[in-house]
């Protein structure tokens, strides 16, 4: 498996992108070159605005598990989902700028009451990543990014089910499932939002779904029956696919 040329390229990509994450040996039916970049800056050249170095490695590894590259197409890393999340958290969303953030706060409020925590989204990531890393140390005696994919996925599943008790790991008022839901939601957004926001690079998410992008009208298609729509997507900045 290790001598497979496609895998060598993939390994090289992962090494450049993830630095400390061991390369994976996952067979793929798709040639990596199909998603090669056209000389645009690589993920490894991106300087995070919000995340610290260790947090950044965590986000790279975690989003790669949430939307892995597979037989359907590229994953979160090719789509630059971590860039999207970093920019998002460095901006007004990260600061909860237009949310009501005065008390009282109720960690256990029913979901129907909406967001009731004292943390901004930026805080949720900062605290959530720290608590998850501690959880991995306790459970595996290793950092999240050095775990096997299987173990990383088991950690993410545990977060999704709210099993790790962040309060015991030194983070109050943050259910681990809440951290996970932010991570998953923002990862999906980064995969599918317009590329102008940093993710969905070269519209890979849209191409995978067959979404036509920011073309504002389809009036002349209303009465054309039984025809496939022939055009690739277009982004807000005018990039065409």
């Amino acid at each position: 498996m290790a001598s497979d040329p496609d895998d060598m390229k993939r390994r090289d990509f992962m090494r450049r992108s993830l630095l400390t994450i061991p390369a994976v040996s996952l067979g793929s039916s798709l040639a990596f070159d199909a998603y090669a970049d056209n000389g645009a800056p690589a993920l490894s050249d991106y300087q995070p605005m919000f995340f610290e170095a260790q947090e950044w490695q965590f986000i790279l590894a975690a989003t790669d598990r949430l939307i892995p590259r597979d037989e359907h197409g590229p994953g979160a890393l090719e789509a630059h989902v971590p860039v999207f999340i970093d920019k998002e958290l460095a901006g007004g969303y990260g600061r909860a700028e237009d949310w009501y953030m005065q008390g009282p706060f109720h960690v256990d409020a029913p979901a129907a009451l909406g967001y009731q925590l004292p943390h901004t989204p930026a805080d949720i990531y900062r605290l959530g990543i720290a608590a998850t890393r501690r959880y991995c140390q306790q459970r595996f005696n290793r950092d999240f990014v050095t775990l096997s994919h299987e173990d990383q996925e088991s950690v993410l599943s545990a977060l999704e089910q709210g099993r790790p008790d962040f309060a015991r790991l030194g983070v109050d008022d943050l259910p681990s499932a809440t951290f996970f839901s932010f991570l998953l939601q923002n990862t999906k957004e980064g995969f599918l939002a317009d590329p102008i926001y940093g993710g969905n690079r070269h519209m890979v998410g849209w191409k995978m779904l067959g979404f036509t992008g920011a073309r504002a009208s389809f009036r002349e298609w209303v009465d054309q029956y039984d025809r496939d729509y022939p055009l690739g997507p277009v982004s807000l900045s005018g990039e065409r696919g």
Partner: protein
Amino acid sequence: MIRILSRMSALALVLGAMTAQAQGADDHDQALIERGAYLARAGDCVACHTAPDGDDFAGGLAIESPFGAIYSTNITPDPDAGIGRYSEAEFAAALRKGKRADGANLYPAMPYPSYARLTDDDLHALYVYFMQGVAPNDHQPQQTDLSFPFNQRWGISAWNWLFADQQPFEPNEQDSDRVNRGRYLVEGLGHCGSCHTPRGIFQQEKALGDDDGDDYLAGANLNGWLAPGLRGGGEDHLGVAGWQAQDIVDYLATGRNAHSAVTGEMTSVIENSTSHMSREDLAAMAAYLKTLPVSDSTDIGSERRISEQKTDQTEQQLRDATALDEGARLYLDNCNACHFADGRGGSGVFPALVGNSQVNADNPTGLLHTMLAGAQLPSTSERPEALMMPGFGWRLSDKEMADLATFVRQGWGNQGSPVTPEDVKKVRNSMDAREGFSGNPEATGANHPDDRAGASAQ
């Protein structure tokens, strides 16, 4: 019985008139001021005599001329900064003959060759309005300082003798009152010819009225934009000639009609002037324009006939979307949502590109300017919504812009010449310099959504 009643009402009228006499003088003045204000709108005095962000009529707007910037003057009744010391005769000489109160010549940026048409009554109303209806303002606008020989104002006398010999308006007896009223407004206060009549080598309008030749309102190039021909005679022609009189009225009243929507310099003319005019006067202007036969020199964009077959071909190509060249693909990505595959836009909302004079103009500057920077309709009392076309300068490179403009200028049977990336670059650069326009796809940074509310579930 009837006779008695009418006598009684006549008596009542006389009595009423006597008691109201004192107030009547004021009413008369007030009515005169209002009429003067209306005429000042028709003349669009405010457009040139107001600086950007300045007070109305206080002057200071730089009017570009081939000889340098000419700064408009303060025409409020301030005795020192404005025209407060002008007698009515001096005021009339300025409007009709381009003479300042001190006898010096005004630069013909002031359309006195057109205002020469003014009747004495209208001049009087304008004088009363500017003296009594406008607040004095002591703003001293920048002085015009052209280089030699254009700073020699006496030289303009020769120009005036050659080119500005218009007489006060005389109605043409063969025409209806309505057409005569329209001619008076178009040739006189409206000074439509200032932009829409081609100029000769001395910067004179080649014709100041329809009795002065076919060049009158035949269309002209205004800093690269086509000021289209307004000669509207005939039926199946493009441009204004293809419009019904009602289309012209709608356009002047609201900046939009069944065919088109205003861009460029005309936007402020509609906003400041024509949208304030009565429907009757606009209808008179339209009726007059429709009497002017289209001549060989009329510049309405290009060929006058659009081939229906070519219109259908382009529409089919866009509907099919399988055999698209670069320009057609860019049209679908950028323009189609509003101007549609048939290129006909939406009546009163989106201008048609088919047969559009600016799209077909020999010089593509106006079209490219609109594509790069967008355009916004004026808000008028009748149609307050200031609909906007966004600029695409930030989204499309010079090459893409050129391909798209070429497609639009040649699709649907349009007859414009191809556009090169160099053409686009030139317009883009001139906009950079003059308007602080920063539209440039390379400069577009990746934004991020700062304004999202709690989209993430707890």
